[in-house]
């Protein structure tokens, strides 16, 4: 099944993304005899606080407008509730709350009630990650991702969760490993 979703394709108007190869074009090229082609990585980029973050597209099942979410009392503060996505009832979490990232003011003209949810597929379940602005799709050569960034002490997010740091033009993008976040994110039982 195609992992790519509508929303993931859209931000092509953003010149940088358009300049990079789409995965379809890439695979066509790979079939032809060519000099060693650099390995590409496809990211879904979103904003938490004032910074850009990204998740590899393989970990993202779909991007959707956040559906009506039912609050669940007495769950950790970063759990926004549960929502019905195509018959699956999944937890919706807020990574800004999860990592104590200060929310940035919304750019003008954005509807604060309209948010987006990245549905992340883990081994045996799915989870929704809510973001305020529409996520973008980005193709990058693997080499642009710095695997061992040294600035990590200053970030709220444990280095285990960070896969690397991507640089494109003037943007710095923190690439997260959602699977690691989810496996370590043990939502505790109710506090006694």
């Amino acid at each position, binding site marked *: 099944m195609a992992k790519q979703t509508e929303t993931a394709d859209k931000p092509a108007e953003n010149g940088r993304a358009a300049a990079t190869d789409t995965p379809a074009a890439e695979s066509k090229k790979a079939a032809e005899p060519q000099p060693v082609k650099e390995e590409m990585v496809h990211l879904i980029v979103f904003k938490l606080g004032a910074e850009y973050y990204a998740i590899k597209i393989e970990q993202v099942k779909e991007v959707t407008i956040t559906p*009506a979410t*039912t*609050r*669940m*009392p*007495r*769950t950790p503060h970063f*759990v926004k509730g*549960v*929502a*019905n996505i195509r*018959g*699956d*009832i*999944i*937890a919706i979490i807020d990574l800004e709350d999860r990592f104590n990232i200060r929310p940035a003011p919304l750019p003008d003209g954005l509807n604060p009630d309209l948010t987006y949810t990245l549905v992340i597929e*883990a081994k*045996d*379940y*799915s*989870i929704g990650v809510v973001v305020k602005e529409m996520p973008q799709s980005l193709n990058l050569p693997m080499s642009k991702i710095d695997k061992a960034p040294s600035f990590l002490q200053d970030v709220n997010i444990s280095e285990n969760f960070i896969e690397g740091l991507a640089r494109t033009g003037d943007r710095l993008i923190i690439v997260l490993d959602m699977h690691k976040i*989810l496996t370590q*994110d*043990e*939502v*505790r*039982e*109710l*506090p*006694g």
Partner: protein
Amino acid sequence: MKSREQEYKEIFIAEALEYFDALNRHISTLEKQPDDEQTLAEIFRLLHNMKANSKAIGYLQISDVSHKLETAFSLIRNKELAFSDEVVTVLFDGIDLLGELITNIDSNQEAEPDPVLLRNLDIIVENLSDSAIELAKVQKYNTSKNLSLSDLVYIQIKKLDHLMNLVGELMIDRDRILSISKDMGNEELKTVSSHLYRITEDLQYSVMDARLVNIGSLFNKFPRIVRDIAAAEKKEVDLALIGQNIQIDRNILQIMTDSLLHLVRNAVTHGLETPAEREKKGKPRIGQLTLSAKSDRENVLIELADDGKGMDFKLIKRTAVERHLVTADAAEALTETEVLSFLFEPGFSTAKEVTEFSGRGVGLDVVKNAIDSIGGRLMVKSEKGKGTTFTMQLPTSIAVKGALLFEVDEIFYAIPLIHTEQVIALDKDELHEVGDVMIADLKGEAITVVYLHELLNTDEAEMRLGDKNRLKGQVQNIVVVSYNNRKLGLIVDKLYRQQDIVVKPMSKPLDRIDLYGGVTLLGTGKVCLVLDVPATTRYFMNKRQAQEHA
């Protein structure tokens, strides 16, 4: 629906035909390798089962022929009868006769077994290795044998689980379609959706029915178990089984197996007295243990009663005080039911000695947890000197439950009916602030009442469970739930109807939050949270204690 007897008959026939096929296979092997001990043992086992099963259900001819064949094979096994050509022919004929008799059960014609063949069987059995056997020629029955396949299929429970899940999903969508079609007012759509409703309902019951097994399949294991424990404990026990025909979901029975075993062990080791003690008390020497099952509307009740010494209320109180579960003063004022509920506290045990069968530090709390996990209830009654009775109230199906729907702070909730005692509307003035909680008087019974909105939504540091000022409006809707012999009134904002819901388990990472038993989707597509009554009660008790210490 078919009668139970008809169902048993069909299962018997299907099984017997399977045995028949296996017998044919094995005897053909044996003809080629007469010394194959394993094959011989297998034939022996099959015949033995066939004899027992047919006797139990009343097909005496089959049982009789099986018996004769069994005897013949036991002679062969003991080398008292040679597996000679003549003998082989008779045995083949005998097995064919069995097949004939089995297939004839269904066609209702009372086929008499061929007397010649029966006599031949008798001859080989009785004449032993005498060489002077005269075997009469037997008319061959099945020259034109029909090949037939069994009417019974074995199915993995996993496949039935999957089917049940799909039915659950279907029911949720059906309710949604039904509610949409009502809104749209299209007559054709209404007709179709009400037809869909009936079909899904039929489907649901059929799948549920396919998962049912007789409770006897578990009960029948106990006579032997009780015998062993009683022998080790030097006690005399008579176990009575009642209601083995009651049917229950196979997975529920599976989950109950260990619990029931635990309770039975306890009853024999701790409940019943030794014969000498019993005689001294003027009781019959033999202790009576009764394991019974009965249907109670949507639930199944399993009861285990002993006529032993009963619970020692003083000892339970003392242990509870020692373990700081209650203060010595408060312990004095407790009712018997309240005292008994300590038995279900984690690790609570009054047993002083560890025996082979009981007292290994695994308490009744394990039993309680197992029953909680399937949404059942465990109750205990006991009278000193007279005995103890454990009652387990179990749902017949795991997935579909009757539930009460309500709303608190604009969120929909459901509570399984198995935990609800009653629903009542009381005026705010009928609630009394007593210490840190609210109390309502329901027909002379004082019941602790809690405002769910306060319990669920107020910041934990600000929580005031005994403050009437937190209530909204004058009339309060109260759902009285009961857990571990304690009642608790939950004040809700809006009460809705009672309805069957399909509980979906909480997906990760929320599955560890025990306040919720799962979620369900309403016809409107809205998510409804299913409150877990045991966890809610525990949470309330903890918060109440935290308030006291504050």
